[in-house]
């Protein structure tokens, strides 16, 4: 099963070329890469992926059905609330979109209340991939589970390329590097899941990242709660619309690798006050300041 050729890449374009060379999807290329990198069998990689997906499924379940208040006390219960609304009243973006967003809110809550999550690509952005991919897969109920695994491998491949060319850290690139990249990974994974070509995967990535270009990281009171949770939700919408556009054949005028490079340049030019330091943006809005003061006071009490 392992291929002799050394799989190496530094761009999404490389991934597309490799996929064509072997007449396989991007997920196949990523599995070969991972197998070679860690000298492990494809089977063991699949098993590990299964474990990670299981934890994502558990976090969705936990967050939607058994919500807890976050450590900082700013969020909790929003995933359940939206899920019930979607079930009872429907959603403007349809049952799939509504459910995917509800799940992303729920998983963010699990993270903020010290529950178990899979950082994807970071803990702050952990709601997007399970929200999008688990929900899209569930709707395609005739697909075998391996297809879901593959969607996550493709999403990971996208994240790996971003980590090589740019950054996944909010402190370095702002929220576009965390929730933004999470959305791009989810969009690309969804495209492969729905049978899109490798080129379509890269178009989805480009469109998603362009949509959040420049997004700052401005957590209120420095907590991974506000606006992080709802930015997970927004990134789900971006991922779904980007995947739809790519699957319809719409192309990104600017190629995905260039978008990633630009995202990094933009990230570096975001002032430090807007890169996870809680010294600007929503964190220093009048309400943000008030919450921050209350939070500081509450810490002294205990």
């Amino acid at each position, binding site marked *: 099963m392992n291929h002799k050729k050394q799989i190496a890449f530094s761009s999404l374009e490389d991934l597309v070329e490799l996929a064509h060379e072997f007449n396989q999807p991007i997920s196949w290329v990523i599995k070969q890469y991972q197998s070679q990198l860690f000298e492990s069998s494809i089977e063991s990689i699949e098993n590990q992926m299964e*474990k990670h997906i299981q*934890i994502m499924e558990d976090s969705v379940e936990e967050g939607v059905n058994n919500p807890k208040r976050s*450590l900082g006390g700013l969020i909790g219960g929003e995933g359940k609330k939206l899920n019930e609304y979607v079930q009872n009243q429907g959603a403007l973006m349809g049952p799939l979109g509504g459910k995917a967003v509800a799940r992303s809110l729920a998983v963010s809550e699990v993270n903020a209340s010290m*529950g*178990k999550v*899979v950082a994807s690509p970071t803990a702050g952005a952990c709601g997007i991939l399970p929200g999008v991919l688990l929900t899209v897969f569930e709707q395609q109920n005739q697909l075998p589970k391996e297809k879901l695994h593959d969607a996550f491998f493709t999403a990971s491949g996208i994240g790996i390329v971003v980590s090589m060319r740019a950054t996944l850290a909010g402190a370095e690139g702002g929220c576009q590097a965390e929730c933004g990249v999470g959305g791009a990974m989810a969009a690309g994974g969804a495209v492969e899941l729905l049978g899109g070509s490798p080129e379509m995967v890269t178009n989805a990535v480009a469109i998603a990242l362009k949509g959040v270009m420049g997004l700052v990281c401005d957590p209120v009171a420095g907590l*991974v709660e506000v606006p992080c949770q709802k930015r997970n939700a927004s990134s789900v919408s971006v991922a779904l619309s980007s995947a739809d556009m790519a699957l319809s054949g719409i192309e990104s005028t600017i190629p995905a690798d260039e978008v990633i490079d630009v995202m990094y340049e933009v990230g570096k030019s975001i002032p430090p006050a807007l890169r996870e330091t809680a010294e600007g943006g929503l964190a220093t809005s009048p309400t943000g300041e008030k919450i921050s003061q209350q939070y500081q006071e509450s810490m002294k009490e205990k």
Partner: protein
Amino acid sequence: MNTGVFEVLGPIMIGPSSSHTAGACRLGLMARQILQGEPVKATIYLHESFQKTRKGHGTEVAILGGILGITPDDERLRKSKEISISKGVEYQFLEKELKGQHPNSCQISLTSKNGKHLSVTGSSIGGGQISISQIDDFSVNLSGQYNAILTKHKDRPGIINRVTKMISSKGINIAYMQISRTKKGDSASLIAETDEPITDNIQKELESHDDIYQVKVIRPL
């Protein structure tokens, strides 16, 4: 080092923050590893950002959990204060400025069941990775990714040779090594990070040497 799939889609961790929660827990785990025994008392000094995130990012419970041997992906982490009390482990958190340290740093002071004391200073440097910079009086630079051996010994010729010879004679490869001393002829330390684990035999043989006061074997996290 190339990035793998489960670094981007992972780690599996207890939220909310890889550096303030997962990395903090690993610092506690590392201190426990170095102590080599059950802790009964822990004093944790929190520096800058760790001080600020002590509650909202679960930094306190994460460090304490690590000290108790709870890993970053274990849901008991949330309950580490209760677990600590039920195990009879005393703990306290204090604010302290650790000069020259990374904002996400802490100093962990432990006492073990058999009365041994240990002080470890380390930082959570991003993505759950850590760096230990001080063990008791000695400056070190440990990542927790390798096996390691630490010796405290008399600063005199031949000791370092003895330690490295002992390690190499068992077919163990040294990846990184640092030596330092308090002052000439006084006490000195050696830290070697190795590719293979240091065996109990090596530890015992080195401990039997008169000029070697202490040998610690540190397993990777």
